[in-house]
């Protein structure tokens, strides 16, 4: 009887797993499993997100943080992904970059009388082009902060940030590796799980004495 149950469970897991692959069951994971702040002034920010991760995976969430606001970012994940997920915060901005582009053309060689000699020479012209590039600057590395899963900060200038989340691979390294393909991947499903990023915001509280007291 036990062996029938085992076979049944295996078959059912084969049928169900592809549905999980769409990461659907991770939706709203952040709302259910990330610990919100105890400060009631914080409100849940619509930029919060959950997704399906595998060990060794790195993904990015691009968010906007506005000046005059406090933000609290908390990370939560399924237990099987370990406890050393790394949160890095980058600033990204578009910068204008001047690039010198060389154009090579072949031109007829002209003799002293202005007639073509029948030979050709390579002519190089240089052109300066202004292009926009995305510049990324590391602002915070959670792995240097004891793999902190919470980050709270006030914003003085509005920024477009990238929250980079890396789940260490089975060997413990945080770098993302290519995902192997081939037979016998049943065990790999245990290396996948949900990751949630809960973002909360509130107006930065004013500190000090205010008003026109006497």
């Amino acid at each position, binding site marked *: 009887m036990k062996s029938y149950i085992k076979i049944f469970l295996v078959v059912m897991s084969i049928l169900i797993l592809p549905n999980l*692959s769409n990461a659907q069951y991770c939706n709203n994971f952040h709302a259910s499993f990330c610990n919100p702040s105890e400060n009631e002034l914080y409100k849940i*920010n619509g*930029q919060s997100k959950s997704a399906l991760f*595998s060990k060794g995976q790195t993904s990015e969430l691009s968010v906007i943080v506005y000046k005059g*606001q406090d933000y609290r970012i908390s990370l939560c994940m399924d237990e099987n992904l370990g406890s050393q997920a790394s949160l890095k915060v980058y600033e990204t901005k578009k910068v204008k970059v001047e690039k010198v582009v060389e154009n090579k053309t072949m031109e007829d060689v002209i003799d002293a009388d202005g007639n073509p000699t029948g030979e050709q020479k390579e002519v190089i012209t240089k052109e300066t082009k202004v292009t926009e590039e995305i510049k990324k600057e590391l602002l915070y590395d959670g792995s240097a902060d004891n793999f902190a899963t919470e980050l709270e900060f006030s914003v003085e*200038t*509005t920024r477009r940030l990238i929250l980079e989340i890396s789940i260490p691979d089975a060997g413990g390294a945080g770098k993302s590796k290519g995902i192997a393909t081939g037979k016998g*991947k049943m065990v790999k499903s245990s290396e*996948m799980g949900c990751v949630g990023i809960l973002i909360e915001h509130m*107006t930065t509280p004013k500190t000090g004495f205010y008003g026109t007291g006497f």
Partner: protein
Amino acid sequence: MNKKSKLALAALVALPLIFLTSCGNDEDADDINSDLVEEVISNVKNESYYQIPSPDEMFGFIKESGLKYNKSMLNPVQNVSSYSEPKQQSLNFGIYSADLAYTAAFEEYQESIKYFGSIQKLGDQIGLSSAFDKSLIERVQTNLNNSDSLIAITNKSYFSVVDYLEQNEQGDKLGLVASAGWLETVYIVCNTAKYGKDNAAIDRLADQKLTLDNLLAYLEKYQDKPDVKEALGWFQDLATVFASLEQKSTGSGITLKKKEGSKKMVLGGGDNITITEAQFNAIKNKVSEIRNNIVKVQ
């Protein structure tokens, strides 16, 4: 276990296997298992997600900054039955969602009820009815005198729509909803803030240059869909107007660190985005043009 039970159990186990094997050619069961699991693995890849702040964040801020509520900015609820095209319905769902957030932020409770009704109606038409919990509308009515609860409920309805569209892999529709919602918030700020007077709101408007970058990146992911491609064109036009806004250095490099004598971390330094009156007017005109094109009734 008697013989009949065993047979029934064997049939239960065998049925899915027969179904699986009948789809393949000469593959054995082991091969099929591997292929299915491979699909699971290969679907997980490094991703970049681009988030767009929801309307409530902007309206909470502009209310605090002292801007007054202006009902004439809203898309009238009577228009809802005029939107018959799916693209128009998705876009106006976003417009009405922002209008709902606006009325809730300014505690215009009776208006909130009307706008909630509009987004429910449009939601039904674009296949979002299951995103709305039936009890939500009742909760809106029972929380009429509690602005915090009303805002929380309207946010919940917006987030549940986002969640539903993500779950059902309708990122293209979500792109239309979120971009129209963002546009409506910018439209309301542009048309209620006065340049040179409402400085906080004007600064927040200038900062939308960064939000627009995320919006464009999101829409570009789905530009193979004709509706998204069309909307992307509108927002790219708007981006060219925003591009003229200068980014001026605050004099120090950007940092995220604890300030001396403080426990809290501070994100400061770097560049500030500045906006002139001419740029403000140009943005206002372009935003109004795109928004009025979306809400117009044929």
